[in-house]
């Protein structure tokens, strides 16, 4: 338990492995929002992201016994969902499905500030979608999910200098696009 009385990741994993399927609901509620945001930024589509996260979490449940370090469940889940996103992207490269699905538009009755924010988000998401998947992944993990390079290395299996280089290249590419539009 943590100080708020919520079970720790290791406790939840132990309960699920002991047969308490419903305890997996804690895992979903705890990590769903972050994983969904990560997958949406990676895939550029909320629907595709929902599929990737749902598939990833179902797989995580089925292979929970192989999670070697339950205290680092979050890293492990990101790793699985990252792989699901890459599978989705690999499939798309074969088909004709467009990658640049726009994020949901703001309701016109929303305030001007909200509309402007939605337009900015659409611009940034488009710029992000223009990056290669490796650079996009590195940028999102670093700047959107706020992970350290060590955590990113654990998720992606890449070396820290490689990840740093990808983040740097991603920033440069994004700045170039964003500065052209502002």
């Amino acid at each position, binding site marked *: 338990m943590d100080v708020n009385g919520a079970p720790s990741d290791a406790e939840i994993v132990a309960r699920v492995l002991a047969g308490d399927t419903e305890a997996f609901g804690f895992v979903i509620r705890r990590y769903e929002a972050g994983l969904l945001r990560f997958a949406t930024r990676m895939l550029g589509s909320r629907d595709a992201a929902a599929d990737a996260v749902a598939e990833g979490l179902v*797989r995580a449940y089925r*292979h929970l016994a*192989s*999670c070697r370090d339950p205290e680092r469940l979050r890293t*492990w889940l990101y*790793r*699985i969902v990252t*792989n699901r996103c*890459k*599978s989705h992207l*690999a499939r798309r490269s*074969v088909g004709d499905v467009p990658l640049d699905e726009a994020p949901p538009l703001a309701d016109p009755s929303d305030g001007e500030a909200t509309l402007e924010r939605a337009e900015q988000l659409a611009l940034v998401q488009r710029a992000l979608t223009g990056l290669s998947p490796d650079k996009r992944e590195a940028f999102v993990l670093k700047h959107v999910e706020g992970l350290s390079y060590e955590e990113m290395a654990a998720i992606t*299996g890449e070396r820290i200098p490689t990840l740093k280089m990808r983040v740097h290249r991603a920033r440069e590419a994004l700045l170039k696009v964003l500065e052209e539009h502002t």
Partner: protein
Amino acid sequence: MRLGVALALLTAGVPLVAQSVQGRLEGRIPGEAVPVVDSLVQVALREGLPSEPLVQKALEGGAKQVPAPRIVAAVRASLGQLREAHDLLVRAGDQPPVRPGEVTTVAWALRRKLPPSTIERVVAELPHPPRGPAIHAIADLVAHGFDPDSSAGLIIDAVHDGLQRDRLLDVSTAALHEVQRGRTRDEAITVVRQQLPNVPGPPKPERGTVTRARRPETMTPPRR
């Protein structure tokens, strides 16, 4: 006498296939596409290529209500893939006539983006019987982002370790499972190679699954 009957059946074979193809297509694809698809099937038969993939592609287009010109274009593209697969097998050292089943498998692997050089390597290194399943297993790995050379190396090692036919798909499945468990693809290949030849088989279906299973009324042979 028996030889005569066999020869008569063989020579009658082509028109029989053609008749049955027309029968399978009529009413299932737009009328104007039937003679064109039929002629493409005849070409495939004359060139010693498998014709079933062409029929399936036409039926698929018809079911999806694709206009006739696009059905014809897709069938023509399939014929091109089969020719490419045939030529690749010959280039890799097979003597014509090559086995239709292997042509289908290689065409399928090319559709799944398996590089021709990898296929040539497999054809050069493996004898016929495990070759088809080996190409399937490698194509499966490559479609999931594995490096073609490493994938081919793993599956060829598995054959040399005594694994055959369906067991080769267990090797690719084991590597995919390792990735799902959080390993990188390179790590997955290393781990599975160390397990060879003792990779786990597919899980047995549960009794309830077998009980529920039903045979569909209309069935066609698998693509192998």
